[in-house]
């Protein structure tokens, strides 16, 4: 095998996954989707505008398309599939997207949910205005955002009622 390829382990959704013979220049998104079959993160714009590939890297939302995969080897990567409980139950946020019909074509949904999950941790009790002001790193071309914002706002309200 050419030495332009390399092998390493990645931590994805709580499991150690072996990546064999990836190109040295592959992005994390390419490695997740094409080597590991982790297809939650989507390929959208390829330059950090649309957020469809958003994953948590050590707990912070990042665009997987912009990260050189080999350099993520020591990081904990969480995709939309890794947010829920181990029994595959939906998170409250995922359930709210279903409940509010916040999904049309669905392509932006995994990135939105990952980014919104971290946003809600940092902004408990977020208002609709907070949501619109902060979640501009994820683009949706179907819904007009209203139902997405409604779903996230409902979770924010429910969680702060439960806390309070």
């Amino acid at each position, binding site marked *: 095998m050419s030495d332009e390829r*390399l092998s390493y382990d990645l931590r994805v959704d709580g499991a150690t996954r072996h990546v064999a013979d990836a190109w*040295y220049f592959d*992005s994390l998104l390419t490695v997740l989707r094409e080597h590991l079959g982790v297809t939650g993160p989507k390929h959208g714009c390829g330059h*950090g505008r649309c957020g469809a590939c958003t994953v948590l890297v050590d707990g912070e939302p*990042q665009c997987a398309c912009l990260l050189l995969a080999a*350099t993520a080897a020591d990081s904990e990567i969480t995709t939309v599939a890794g947010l829920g409980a181990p029994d595959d139950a939906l998170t409250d946020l995922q359930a709210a997207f279903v409940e509010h019909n916040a999904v049309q074509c669905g392509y932006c949904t995994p990135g939105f949910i990952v980014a919104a999950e971290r946003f809600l941790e940092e902004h408990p009790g977020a208002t609709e205005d907070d949501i619109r002001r902060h979640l*501009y790193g994820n683009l949706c071309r179907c819904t007009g955002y209203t139902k997405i914002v409604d779903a996230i706002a409902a979770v924010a309200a429910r969680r702060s009622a439960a806390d309070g």
Partner: protein
Amino acid sequence: MLLDHRYVAIPETLSEVLAALQARPDARVIAGGTELMPDLLAGRKHPTGFVSLRKVGALRGVRRDGPALVVGAATPIVDLLDLPEAPALAAAAASLGTPQVRNQATAGGNVMSALPFRNLLPALVALDAEVELASADGTRRVPYRDFTLAPGATRLADGEVLAALRVPVVDGFQSYVKVGRRNAQFVAVSSAALVVDDRARALRIGLGNAARIPVRAPAAEAFAAAHADWEARTLAADAAAEAARLAAADADPPDDPIASAAYRRHATGVLVRRLLERAFDV
């Protein structure tokens, strides 16, 4: 780890970075990847290897060193959002990219892109920042205003790596403004930063996209400083307008599909006047 791979090195110390660069003279330094990865995907660049700064803890973070803040080159933009000692830099960081991109992109990457519309650059010019360049021979400091030679080109020598930015802490008003096509995630059509030095009774203006590289506006600075009433903190409206006119007249902005040179020249004047109106009672 991966120190010995021919195409990807992931060093953990600055000396390992320098050794990795020496072993791979054609490799590109990569940190957050936000600058380089889109070019790779689009086939505009074909680096024959990478030296990653992601694991080099010594190049990450902001610390105070006497009269200056030292910003490690691999510090992510998100760590610059709350910098009371350098408000112009914080304001420039706040409108960079998206929340995701701010978690990835680094201060050093913004500087090394050397593109005149990048957010931090007018602020660094106005703050009279220095860059710290490390090599096997040691570290040298270069004033940031002399560092960029042309779009994409800097004074970084072969075997050198940008290690840190040194940002003087200045007492007085600071801010950064830009204009573009919308309010979120846009590249600046034109941008400007103002740093008022209350003690020296001087001010410095940094401009983005007013030339092929980030520049100061010396005529506008001198005019505004001379006409300001530093006791009352006022500046007459016609003096602010004249300073803005001088900044626009000295501009030699790029002309491209995003905006014409004429529009950018006009916008430069508007931004300078806007900053002066915020800094002084007009």
